[in-house]
């Protein structure tokens, strides 16, 4: 009987430490599947962030490097410039990329470094206990905004994909979600295009992936998928912002 689905070789056999229902695991698998399908696992170097996915270096079946908080694009820049024949990617959360690491990601995009960034946006700081992130939605209750995020006090949530799409150096920018099997399949296509952009030498590529955090949102995993669809997608519209193949401008 033909096997139509099994665990990818792009991931190690180490059980992940993520909470039940956390979609980090899905995004890890998509990256692993894409690297396996593109046959670049043996020459890929990933850079892990700080945040929930800090232990990502244990899970990806390729060479990995750990960076300090928010500095993954800077570390990846160094690796890619010294070893241009390698495929280099960063895997970062919203507390890492959209907050402390904004300078690094903006300038990596500006220089159009030949790296690929997987940006996981779950609208909250997961590892540290559910504090408000720059991407938390207006009115969203977190441990540091118990009455809901007040835009008069802390501003509006930051839309990273739209912001980076204004930079000429950002060759590939797309936002996807992992809240349903259909969206997961689309997310995989986007991640594949982002890595293909790097293989083709066309510069910086980023995929923003809307993700869930059932534990810190305080809801069960199936409800978290609904919450993502009802609250996050309206504010963070899915779609392709830039693609070197299509030149959607």
């Amino acid at each position: 009987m033909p096997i139509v689905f099994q665990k990818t070789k792009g991931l190690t056999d180490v059980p992940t430490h993520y909470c039940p229902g956390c979609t980090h695991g899905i995004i890890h698998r998509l990256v692993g599947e894409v690297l396996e399908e593109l046959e670049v696992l043996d020459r890929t170097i990933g850079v892990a962030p700080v945040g929930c996915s800090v232990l990502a270096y244990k899970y990806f079946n390729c060479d990995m490097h750990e960076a300090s908080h928010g500095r993954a694009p800077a570390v990846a820049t160094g690796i890619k410039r010294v070893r241009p024949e390698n495929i280099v990617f960063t895997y970062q959360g919203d507390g890492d990329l959209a907050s402390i690491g904004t300078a690094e990601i903006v300038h990596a995009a500006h220089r159009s470094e030949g790296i690929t960034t997987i940006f996981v946006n779950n609208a909250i700081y997961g590892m540290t206990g559910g504090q408000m992130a720059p991407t938390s939605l207006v009115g969203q209750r977190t441990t540091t905004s118990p009455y809901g995020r007040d835009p008069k006090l802390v501003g509006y949530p930051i839309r990273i994909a739209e912001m980076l799409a204004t930079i000429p150096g950002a060759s590939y920018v797309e936002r996807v979600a992992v809240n349903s099997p259909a969206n997961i399949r689309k997310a995989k296509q986007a991640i594949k295009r982002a890595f293909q952009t790097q293989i083709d030498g066309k510069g910086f590529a980023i995929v923003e992936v809307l993700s869930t955090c059932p534990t810190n949102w305080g809801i069960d995993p199936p409800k978290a998928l609904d919450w993502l669809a009802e609250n996050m997608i309206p504010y963070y519209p899915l779609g392709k912002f830039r693609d070197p193949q299509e030149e959607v401008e």
Partner: protein
Amino acid sequence: MAKGRVFFDQELCKGCGLCVLVCPVQCLALNRKEINSKGYNPAYCKEPEKCIGCANCGVMCPDSVITVERF
């Protein structure tokens, strides 16, 4: 008549229930009578004859515990 078959690595399952949610023929369930060594109720195929081998469960599983065969 079943068109597919699903296998679970039940020791790694965290019982999140996302596979149960996305199964189009509702043949999966969490096994409330069993607890794995992580302390979760693992998912299992409750009605294997209904399975169509669509692999939606595998695509949705955050912990890659599912293998799907299609006849």
